[in-house]
């Protein structure tokens, strides 16, 4: 009796083990976009919430047209970042459109990023540039295009709040060093060419210090009238 009990346990165990191995083997790869774009998620987060460092930006909730254009700009060599250029090189437009729509549709809480210590004067300068611009230097307010709440405008203009200081200042800097550009006329390049290094720091710090509105979303299409001609907005 004892012996047969032992055999039964063994048989049950063997069966369970075989079933487990079989289940593992047979587990099909999920036929989902999330599974297909595991490479994106590994740096930007499964929902595009952004990486834990300052340089893998949040993608969640950014307008789809903007996200698609960034991938196309990496393909065209207008925007430079080697791993991204490599990653999107073999993709075609319909697939990139689908990926852009996925991240644009994600709603996840914003991560809080530290604001660098800046002098009150620098923060005031940052606020001035963001909200009013600097007419004497021909710099329009960031809000003029990126929306009154700086949360972006559908379908092509990204929000500027909820981004780390290092990311915003690196992007503004990269327009200056020609490692980021886009379809001509590249109005952001024009704006950045009129900013000093101190202006870039001030703008980036003030933007990083802004709280993200609780229901942050991009404004409806056509709700802003850009003061400059921009290729990305149809010239």
């Amino acid at each position, binding site marked *: 009796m004892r012996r047969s009990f032992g055999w039964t346990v063994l048989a049950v165990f063997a069966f369970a083990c075989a079933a487990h191995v079989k289940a593992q083997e047979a587990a099909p790869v999920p036929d989902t976009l999330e599974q297909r774009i595991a490479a994106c998620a590994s740096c930007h987060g499964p929902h595009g919430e952004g990486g834990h460092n300052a340089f893998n930006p949040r993608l969640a909730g950014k307008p789809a047209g903007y996200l698609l254009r960034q991938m196309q700009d990496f393909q065209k060599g207008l925007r430079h970042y080697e791993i991204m250029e490599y990653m999107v090189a*073999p993709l075609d437009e319909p697939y990139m459109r689908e990926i852009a729509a996925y991240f644009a549709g994600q709603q996840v809480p914003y991560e809080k990023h530290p604001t660098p210590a800046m002098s009150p004067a620098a923060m005031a300068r940052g606020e001035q540039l963001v909200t009013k611009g600097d007419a004497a230097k021909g710099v329009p307010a960031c809000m003029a295009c990126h929306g009154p709440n700086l949360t972006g405008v559908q379908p092509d203009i990204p929000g500027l709040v909820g981004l780390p200081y290092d990311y915003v200042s690196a992007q503004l800097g990269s327009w200056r060093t020609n490692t980021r550009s886009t379809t001509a006329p590249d109005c952001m390049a024009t704006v950045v060419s009129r900013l000093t290094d101190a202006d870039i720091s001030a703008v980036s710090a003030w933007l990083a210090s802004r709280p993200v509105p609780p229901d942050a979303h991009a404004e409806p299409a056509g709700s802003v009238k850009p003061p400059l001609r921009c290729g990305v907005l149809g010239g």
Partner: protein
Amino acid sequence: MKTTLQIAALLVALITCRSALTRDALAEGQYLTTIGDCASCHTARNGKPMAGGRVVPTPFGAIPSPNLTPDHETGLGTWRAEDFYQALHSGKAHDGTSLYPAFPFTSYTKVTRADSDAMFAYLKSLPAVRNPDTPNTLRWPYRMRSLMASWRLMYFDEGEYQPDPKQSAQWNRGAYLVQGLGHCNECHANRNSFGAMVTDPFLAGGLIPVQNWYAPDLSMGPEGGLAGWSEADVVALLKTGRSSKGSALGPMAEVVLKSTQHLTDDDLAAIATYLKTLPPRAPVRQRGNAVDAAQVAQAGQKVYAQHCADCHGADGRGKGDAYPPLDGNVSVTEPTGINAIRVVLSGGFAPATASHPRPYSMPPFAQVLTDDDAAAVVTYIRHAWSNRASSVSPNDVRAYRSTPGGI
């Protein structure tokens, strides 16, 4: 009156017929330029089609591709069909100067005059784009074109493809495409120190200079790089970018995207038929293993279990259409280990092709794995299952940390 009408009708019919014929000829020319993958070099990133300007890197300096649109001053506007044939067939520009072999005339010489004319007619039909040549950056002495005379004597075998009467029409079509327009051997062979491709053995694999991806041996025999591949696998890879044996990576992904996915099923089958008959090779000599290779592989097995097994399977057999097998995968076992190192570091998508439009992807592990861990896991997959390739070192990994694409 009736006669006039009849003549008019005949004229209309003739003109319609002629333009239809011209369209067919142009379509054929376009198809041939696609097989030749002319656009990969002659269309710059974000540039106008065939207007040149993409820089071809070589160990001797960079060579920007010229403009192939019919612009009179900067393109092929003043070229005649015989000039174009001379370029393909003899590697000479229309003023008679020798072209550099970054332009693969060493392969294109196999192209027939009829195919050359069709391609030329297609190029002439493109919108003319003004895009002047930019100078190459060839170093001395390579920038002296006169040296090409002796290079050509030593390494250039001029002549159209001669069909082998002992082989089938399909085999001959495959050989014509692979040896000629496909110019496969320009990458899938080693090059000597003068930049000339090795042609014997043919398509036996080699490291692509500057780009540093290993283009594997394409023979399907027991010691070949594609040992175990069926003709259907070859067709699948060329058409979709992936097969049950592995996916197209790096420069080959671009070749699939721009060229081979557009080939007809007949032409792809012909290519596979030909590759299947490449003669047997001597086994490739792997460089030696590091003394601690077994230990390193053991450490690599842990990394593999943690990061790789979910998709590629503990048994290295991959998962269906999504994730390629690593057991018996030539990108894993190629002699240098470079391909596996680069894929581990950079990950990436298989090419999005018409028949495989939403490929799965692999995360880049450059920021996750140390040089030691990456070397360990690559060493492991090169040793595991039926794989018997040499170990790689942390130094090998370090060399590719900052070069994701290299294309």
